[in-house]
């Protein structure tokens, strides 16, 4: 299956949302797992490089949207992240914004009678 990835610029504005929503699935997750879940959930179209993911996680933590803890019970010392209440709030606000935005763009394209190239 050929998967073409989304444009970087398109992704940039939504990376927070992507990571927060993966964490919303419940429980704690570590970086590698988050990366994998994002890849799988997007059918390979969103690939978060480690160089993007980890600084992003640290920023979200600084902003109080996620919190972390170290745990070695899975056989390897890992840093686990989970959503905070503020993160959950931010996630639903951002989700709303994205839904509105997508609807808005769809509307624009309909008016302009632009057909997506399949």
């Amino acid at each position, binding site marked *: 299956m050929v998967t073409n990835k989304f444009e970087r610029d398109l992704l940039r504005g939504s990376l927070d949302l992507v990571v927060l929503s993966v964490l919303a699935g419940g429980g704690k997750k*570590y970086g*590698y797992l988050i990366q994998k879940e994002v890849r799988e959930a997007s059918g390979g179209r969103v690939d978060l490089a*480690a*160089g993007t993911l*980890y*600084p992003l996680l640290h*920023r979200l933590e*600084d902003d109080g949207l996620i919190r972390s803890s170290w745990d070695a019970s899975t056989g*390897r010392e890992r*840093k686990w992240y989970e959503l905070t209440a503020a993160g959950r709030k931010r996630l639903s606000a951002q989700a709303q914004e994205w839904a509105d935005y997508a609807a808005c763009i769809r509307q624009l394209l309909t008016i302009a009678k632009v057909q997506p190239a399949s």
Partner: protein
Amino acid sequence: MSDHEFDNYLALLSRLLRLGQKQRDAIAGELRSHLEDRLEELLARGVPRDEAVRQALEEFGDAAAMAAEFVSLSGNKRKRWIMRLTTASVAAIVLIAAGIFTFWPGRNAGPGPAQLVAQPPATQAAAAADEKSVQEHKDIAIKDLLDRRMAFIFKEVPLRDLAKQLSMQNGITIYVDTRHLEEAGVNTDTPITQAFTDMRFRTFLDLMLGELDLTYFIKDDVLIITTPESAEGQRVIRVYDCRELLSLPHPRGSGVSKVARGGGFFAVQDEPGEKPAPAAGGTAAPPAGAPPQNVPGGGRADGGAGGQDIWDVDSLIDLITTIVDPDTWDDVGGPGSIAEYKGLISVASTQQVHEKVERLLNMLHQAGGLKESKVTVVE
């Protein structure tokens, strides 16, 4: 199952992180677990170990870029900290000022001098010292910073943001002179990519700004990034106290060839014709007829007392204007000027020229073995 290839990568990355040891270890630890997970998965898929290690690292990408991401994050954090600190110091200074004002002699109706000494106790002295150290700290900071070595890792960072990051990370103010930059056709969005792990701040600025045909100067504790044309308009006048340097005795035999060929030692006399040169004492007896050779060569001095000084000052000025940015001095049509009064050399030029002049003079002080091996500068 820590692989030493990972160790190398993580050690490099850790070195590039200008963060506290604890933070570095935490980041390295987190990334290590990721690399090991990845390696395990690739091995399970039957990828040969060497290949798997290579691939895991490749997916991680450039250590420098990754470190830069983390460092720029911490810059934001530090900003908040600096702001808190600044608020705190403002409060402290207000308190100090209030303290000084309360104890200010004029406010207490006619305290005798004795009372003055006795009355304002530790408070005033401590307050004054505090204020002084705040000021000094600030002065030193920016000058010291220029000579400090550090890592500079920027990947496609716009000049504007780069200046912001540098100022937050180092606690100084950097101002980008947007108007002059735009006039010169330089956009502050210009992406900058530089990676140096160990470089003087000064050298980095020279390199990075030089590539954009820009320069910087320091005014009122603010580092201003601007065009060379605008910087040239910012002339600063400073006076360098070179009296000590000029009163250095001439070492034996030096400078002689310029003055006289035959009677070498006589050229070192300080006061022609008054007494025998101390340097000549004890060594070879002066041949008769040598004294006229004391007049410095080139006819630059009047031959009377003090002639030697004039010769020295002129040659010191010559030295400065030849060594330090020769094309910036007014005798060749540049904006800088230099003049002397009784061993005090005043220079009007740009900040950067001043810095070089100061360094050159300090080097001369040091080379001359002066105890205060630093030139006194009046601004």
